[in-house]
């Protein structure tokens, strides 16, 4: 089986999500290739090769919004090489290309995959719904290529044998008006402390924090623990913190060693973004809050007492 994995360059290197999918593809067996939207550095190629790519089809990102041209290029490559399975990640550019490619090829996409299996020459895709309590297994009808979009952190990225992939430079065709978007500026938002996706500890808050000005205690706790701060959608909608801090179905998917859930009830849409965290600690005044159903330590109490007391206790330790 030929498995192709789309990987986007992020911050100069292949995105972690792409390496996760390459690792999984390698484990599924067969012939693995990467479609890499990024530069040509030896380090990047080595990372792709070591994670499983025998061939890298490289697309040059340039300053044009890439999805339209990349989907057209992929349509050409698919026609030429007939891959059986194409994997994309649940990330902005991956989604933009996967959706367009699906329409171009008139082939379905199964999204939100948390696992993939190959059985009887077909592909089974595993989804989790209802806050991760129910697994749905879906197969493709008809002929491939099969396209799947994989949720971040579903697999661990692990290097295998060192390999130097064959690199095939691939041009992105001019797609006319559909490809007319141009990237004129790129901004990196640097936050103090670690990124949410990489943090070992996350301090997350929900609407129960009460107000924007009561949020600072979470920042303080995160600072003490070297943690990242996250939030529920309700908090983002209320404008207390930016969307980039949102964890859940429509936000980031995280899997830290420790997750401290403060005054968040644990709506299904939030749980799908964090339920695979190592240790979950929850503080909520509502003893019926669903978050307690998955918390290793649940504290029924007032977050505005417990968290400041925790901050003070940690300060006292020096």
């Amino acid at each position, binding site marked *: 089986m030929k498995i192709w994995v789309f990987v986007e360059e*992020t*911050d100069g290197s292949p*995105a972690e999500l792409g390496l996760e999918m390459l690792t999984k593809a390698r484990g599924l067996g067969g012939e693995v290739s990467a479609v890499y939207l990024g530069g040509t550095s030896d380090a990047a190629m080595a990372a792709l090769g070591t994670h499983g790519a025998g061939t890298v089809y490289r697309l040059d990102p340039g300053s044009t*919004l890439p999805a339209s041209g990349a989907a057209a290029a992929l349509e050409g490559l698919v026609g030429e090489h007939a891959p059986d399975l194409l994997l994309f990640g649940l*990330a*902005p*550019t991956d989604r*933009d*290309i*996967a*959706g*367009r490619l699906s*329409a171009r090829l008139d*082939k*379905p*996409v199964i*999204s939100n995959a948390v696992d993939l299996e190959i059985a009887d020459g077909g592909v089974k895709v595993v989804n989790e719904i*209802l*806050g*991760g309590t*129910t697994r749905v297994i*879906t*197969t*493709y*009808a008809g002929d491939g290529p099969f396209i799947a979009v994989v949720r971040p952190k579903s697999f661990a990225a692990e290097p295998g044998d060192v390999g130097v992939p064959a690199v095939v430079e691939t041009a992105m065709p001019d797609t006319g*008006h*559909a*490809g*007319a*978007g141009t990237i*004129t*500026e790129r*901004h*990196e*938002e640097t936050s103090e402390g670690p990124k949410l996706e990489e943090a*070992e*500890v996350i301090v997350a808050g929900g609407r129960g924090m009460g107000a924007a000005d009561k949020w600072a205690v979470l920042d303080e706790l995160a600072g003490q*623990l070297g943690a990242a701060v996250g939030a529920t959608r309700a908090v983002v*909608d209320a*404008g207390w913190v930016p*969307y*980039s801090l949102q964890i859940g179905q*429509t936000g980031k998917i995280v899997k830290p*060693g*420790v997750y401290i859930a403060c005054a968040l009830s644990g709506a*299904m849409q939030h749980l799908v973004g964090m*339920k695979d965290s190592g240790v979950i600690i929850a*503080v909520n005044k509502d003893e019926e809050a669903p978050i*307690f*159903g998955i*918390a*290793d*330590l*649940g*504290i*029924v109490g007032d977050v505005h*007492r*417990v968290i400041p*007391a*925790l901050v003070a206790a940690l300060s006292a330790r020096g």
Partner: protein
Amino acid sequence: MKIAVCVKQIPDPATPYELDPETHFVVRPNDQVLDDTDRYGIELALQLAEATEGSVTLVSMSPAGGLQGIRQALAMGADKAIIIDDESLRGSGALGTAKVLSAAIKGEEADLVIAGTESTDGYVGLVPQMLAELLGLPALTFAKKVEQADGGLRVERQTALGYDVVESPLPALVTVTSGAVEPRYPTFKGIMQAKSKPIEQPSVADLGLTAEDVGVAGSGQHITAVEPAPERGGGVKIVDEGEAHLEIVKILEQAKVI
């Protein structure tokens, strides 16, 4: 500016939805609500239409039911709605949905198509991109800010590292993230007016599509099993009586965070 906004009626997300044990489709009550995340797109459309003396058409593929969700969207100020509800649509996948929406939008000659990044109930998150491809439009996705510039649009697009500024001519498609704008609350006048605003309900055949394009047949996939996921049970639950924070300290020590 003529603007089409994709919206969806969904089961109230406050109550967990159910799957039909036979078909595995989501059981949809007659009264569905407007997907809350659609309010950002509607608000953006209203602001742009107000600035350009334009119009806002809602386009939706979902069981019409009592049209409660569509009326909620009209009450915010949209001019009219097109809702496609047809028995043949049950079980449609993202691509089938995009085909239906694109056929409905083609007739509108919209300068701008706006959608959310994904629905709250299905959250496949690919329909807008498919729609852009089918309509031949640039897709300015994951926008956290949208403004008019030089006859086109200037958008701040969320990325893994921060955001990119993206510029595009019209016509175009935009997907908006939560918080991109502040959705207005419907006024009493808006709610009253929504009751008499035009709602078109074309059939799949009216849109020039066949049963093979949509529904289960057009979805190209089938569910083979629905099963409970391995449970992650809860652990210890204690009531804070002034010392509970010390339990957190213990766990942080065990995890070697401190």
